[in-house]
């Protein structure tokens, strides 16, 4: 996407460049682009859902297709839109923020991206190969075992691929932060977005394995006749629910913590104040992560785990309000006494505070187990999680897009369109989801293909659908803005927002090696310190040296293709054993590439200091 750099090269060369790149910024951009694409698909599915629910007993789509729609909407949005876009920002921004030239495992980074992308493609291929998964994004057994066709198989293999990719990303980020901080960048001087990247990665590390295991069990039951969830042979379907939610609840914090990090960058930048209560913000982040692992059964209050389990999990769940509250009030206190500029990035951040607070508070209401007996599996829950996800995560993504676009692509997004998109989306969002709280309490369960006539649910659903279209319009405006800016936008200076952290001390877009000389960090908000102390730019921590860079490689891509082929083989060997050949071939390709990679020494290359000096400052 970095237009300037690729203009005078052929399409083939550019493509090859992206297929083989191990540059964290390019990979980050690819994550964001692919995630945005999946967001559009997921949004389209949301619109279809809302059209079906525009009036009672509508027959816009069939019952089976409706279930496919919600499943694909939820799965796509969570795994292939929100998570990867956030990982994209982490990839592109975090190393810049901590003053690193790269991530710890550039090769793995590329592999992680390709696995995610092909996981998403695999999942969506199910539309063509006889039907998408239809057991909900939670895929509860035994419904998911019973589901005909290959839909759920695509779900299993698609998530397995992308899950492996995400896990690699997580490990990579942790190692990067532990080992590659610039001189002087102590842990307690790291920007909050880097902190949340760190904590999110830890969550990924501990949460995704549970999903991996769950998916293996489901895969074995569906494809190889094992009996984990088969009651007749002694299986127990509740195991799936536990495994899914041991993963699933941390996953929602995997989504929201980076968004918190984004807001913790934007709010200080546009209030011209340092973040209020930095230490407690870091502490709260850890506390949320820690508690996040002890509340999963709040999704299972009605399963019949008994009062003891329900009571423990209810109290643990509500406790998360405390660290989250600390954050909300710290943001407010950051703005208090500041000098607030409201532009499109800040608008999203400002809208986030009340919207997310509503979502969080309905979360606490859900946490009261005896009240959840009423809310559970109704539109109240749908309202809750869209408030936190859209009002928190999606707003965060939009905010980050406006804030960091200049850094990543060297151009500033158009303000007018930015504001228009914001208002359309913001109003649409509240129209769509606020009313759903009441729909739920008025007796509308979720995952309902139709609601019946004469049950007092008509108006609410109509309003909700209209709101969804406003959100659609808003999204389209953002899209136009991005395209328009890429072609005609105003060029961005290195530090367009007069911001505080290291990424703004280098050119926009940053050179391949990020920092010509590693900066010396003298405190929190290093760039701001240099600016207020009159220097305006970072001091170097080292003399000019040759910069070591990793070599690009096509191996990650080939390896992924291997796993992709093997996954297709696994899915279809149920029908015809010849497909096992695809499994063998795919695995051989993947493992062979792995072997080749480990046998071939790759020491990377150096950019020589003479070359660097020749480039203008």
């Amino acid at each position, binding site marked *: 996407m970095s237009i300037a750099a690729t203009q005078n090269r052929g399409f083939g060369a550019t493509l090859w460049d992206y297929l083989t790149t191990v540059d964290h910024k390019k990979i980050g951009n690819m994550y964001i682009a692919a995630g945005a694409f999946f967001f559009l698909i997921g949004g389209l599915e949301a619109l279809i859902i809302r059209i079906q629910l525009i009036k009672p007993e509508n027959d816009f789509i069939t019952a089976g297709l409706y279930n496919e729609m919600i499943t694909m909407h939820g799965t796509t949005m969570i795994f292939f839109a929100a998570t990867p876009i956030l990982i994209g920002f982490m990839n592109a921004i975090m190393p810049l923020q901590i003053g690193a030239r790269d991530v710890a495992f550039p090769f793995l980074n590329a592999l992680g991206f390709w696995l995610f992308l092909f996981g998403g493609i695999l999942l969506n291929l199910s539309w063509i190969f006889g039907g998408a998964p239809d057991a909900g994004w939670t895929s509860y057994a035994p419904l998911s075992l019973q589901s005909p066709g290959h839909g759920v198989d695509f779900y299993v293999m698609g998530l397995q691929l992308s899950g492996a990719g995400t896990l690699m990303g997580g490990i990579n980020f942790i190692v990067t932060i532990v080992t590659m901080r610039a001189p002087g960048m102590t842990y307690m001087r790291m920007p909050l977005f880097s902190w949340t990247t760190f904590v999110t990665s830890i969550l990924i590390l*501990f949460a995704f394995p549970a999903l991996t295991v769950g998916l293996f069990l489901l895969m074995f039951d569906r494809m190889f006749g094992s009996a984990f969830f088969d009651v007749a042979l002694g299986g127990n379907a509740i195991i799936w629910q536990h495994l899914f939610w041991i993963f699933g609840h941390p996953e929602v914090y995997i989504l929201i913590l980076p968004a918190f990090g984004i807001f913790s960058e934007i709010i200080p930048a546009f209030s011209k104040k340092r973040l209020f209560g930095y230490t407690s913000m870091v502490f709260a982040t850890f506390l949320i992560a820690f508690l996040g*692992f002890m509340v999963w059964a709040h999704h299972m209050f009605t399963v019949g785990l008994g009062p003891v389990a329900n009571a423990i999990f209810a109290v643990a769940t509500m406790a998360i309000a405390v660290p989250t509250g600390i954050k909300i009030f710290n943001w407010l206190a950051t703005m208090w006494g500041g000098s607030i500029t409201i532009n499109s990035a800040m608008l999203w951040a400002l809208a986030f505070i009340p919207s997310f607070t509503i979502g969080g508070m309905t979360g606490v209401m859900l946490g009261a187990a005896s009240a959840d007996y009423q809310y559970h599996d109704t539109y109240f829950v749908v309202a809750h999680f869209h408030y936190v996800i859209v009002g928190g995560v999606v707003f965060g993504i939009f905010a980050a897009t406006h804030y960091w676009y200049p850094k990543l692509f060297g151009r500033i997004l158009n303000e007018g369109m930015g504001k228009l998109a914001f208002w359309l989306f913001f109003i649409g969002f509240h129209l769509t989801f606020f009313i759903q709280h009441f729909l739920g309490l008025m007796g509308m369960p979720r995952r309902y293909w139709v609601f019946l006539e004469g049950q007092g649910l008509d108006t609410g659903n109509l309003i909700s659908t209209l709101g969804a279209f406003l959100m659609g319009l808003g999204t389209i405006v953002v899209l136009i803005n991005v395209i328009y800016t890429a072609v005609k936008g105003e060029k961005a200076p290195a530090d367009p927002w007069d911001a505080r952290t290291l990424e703004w001390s280098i050119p926009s877009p940053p050179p391949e090696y990020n920092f010509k000389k590693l900066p010396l960090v003298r405190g929190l908000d290093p760039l701001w310190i240099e600016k207020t102390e009159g220097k305006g730019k970072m001091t170097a921590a080292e003399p000019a040296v040759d910069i070591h860079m990793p070599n690009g490689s096509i191996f990650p891509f080939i390896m992924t293709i291997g796993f992709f082929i093997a996954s297709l083989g696994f899915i279809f060997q149920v029908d015809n054993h010849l497909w096992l050949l695809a499994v063998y071939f795919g695995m051989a390709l993947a493992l062979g590439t792995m072997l080749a990679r480990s046998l071939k020494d790759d020491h990377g290359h150096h950019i020589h200091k003479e070359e660097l000096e020749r480039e203008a400052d």
Partner: protein
Amino acid sequence: MNNDNMNIDKINSFQKQQNKEEMKKQIITFVLMIAFTVVAFAVVASGLEAIYAVPLILILAVVQVGFQFYYFMHMKDEGHEVPSSLIFGGIWVAVLTILTMTTIIWW
């Protein structure tokens, strides 16, 4: 590779000696581990009742694994602070998971 991120303190007899000391501890560790294993098997072979046997062999396993981590895998050495806190994080999640599966799954 640049010289600056490498400690070129050369190998000397002092370090050799140190490595040897270290190796002795490793052997003691190994002997202990084998001993724990033998005890665990013996407990089961002796037909001790489950209420005594199960906690006993579980404790033996945990201690043995502790040795493995701290000595064989050097978690006791410095430079292992972050890895060990993450391992403990993993163990914490693992404990929660297993506790759930053993207690409330059949509620």
